[in-house]
């Protein structure tokens, strides 16, 4: 078959296919990771914000990863002394909590 000329070149399309696949997997991990944090941050802010007036700049979210697991820590500064729902009912209307 390969009398003239001998083909030494390997088909490049399969190489491209393979590289692309692993590249995209890597991309997806990266994007999902960054997106996950910002999505969580927004949703947590919205959730807490429904019950209290908090500063969006004071919502901190961190993920610490070890080999086996990751931990998510959320740090939100709230501008008041937190009370239980029972005491809140008693003091309703005091203006400490703001509702949307």
């Amino acid at each position, binding site marked *: 078959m390969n009398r003239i000329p001998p083909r030494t070149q390997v*088909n*490049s*399309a*399969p190489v*491209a*296919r393979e*590289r*692309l*696949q692993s*590249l*995209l997997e890597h*991309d997806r991990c990266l*994007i999902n990771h960054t997106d996950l944090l910002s999505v969580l941050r927004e949703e947590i802010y919205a959730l807490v914000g429904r019950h209290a007036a908090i500063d969006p700049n004071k919502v901190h979210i961190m993920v610490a990863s070890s080999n086996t697991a990751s931990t998510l820590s959320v740090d939100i500064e709230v501008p008041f002394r937190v009370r239980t729902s029972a005491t809140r009912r008693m003091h309703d209307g005091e203006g400490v909590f703001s509702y949307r």
Partner: protein
Amino acid sequence: MGKVIVVTSGKGGVGKTTSTAAFGAALARAGQKVVVVDFDVGLRNLDLVMGAEQCVEFDLTNVVQGTANLSQALLRDKRLELLYLLPASQTRDKDALTEDGVANVICELRDKFEWVICDSPAGIERGATLAMRFADEAIIVANPEISSVRDSSRMLGLVDSRPLKVETGGRLEKHLLITRYDPERVARGEMLSVMDVTAILPIPLLGIIPESEEVLRASNLGAPITVCGRESAVSQAYFDAARRIRGDRVKMTIPSDNKNLLTKWLGRRAA
């Protein structure tokens, strides 16, 4: 109410502008009133591909900023009376376009035209986001080449989140346009095939545009390929794609390397 389509890709140089011009002209030739809008502020090229660079007086930025009205900035094509162009400005100020301003312009264009085709700049920055912001449908242009496919894959995510239609709970229809497809190289195993590309970009295929010297010829002449290269395979592929986007069912054939040796030899000689 016209339909707004964004032509986008992430990567530059894959054929967004060529495709925008080709689609615009193909739709106009089918009796549709079309405007093609260049969103590439600072690096406008759609006017060149359409052969209208000498006529540009006002542009999208002028209209957005209110220094010109739409009818002053719109350019009617020399060859097709249903085809119009709204050029981008050559100003270096990337922030010249505001979202509200663009919203107003698109709204006005929707009233006047059946198709509003937005040529997105490359990248994922503000210009690209604005181009897709008010779109009803998106055409993702990709070459069978790894960097283009990767960028288009990224673009799919943006098209699923940035447009207003998505934010308000709607669904944005996406179409894949594969350009610069070389069946001979695919047959030789030197290029990603249509299957390879669609496996990674799993959206409905709008068309496969073969690699062709006709494209450069058309841009040299300043005419959309569907105007000056009507008989070519490229032009035919764009006409078919334009019919598909209008909802017609047109059979999709993957360009194949089925030429016999004689025609190959003759073709090479003719080229």
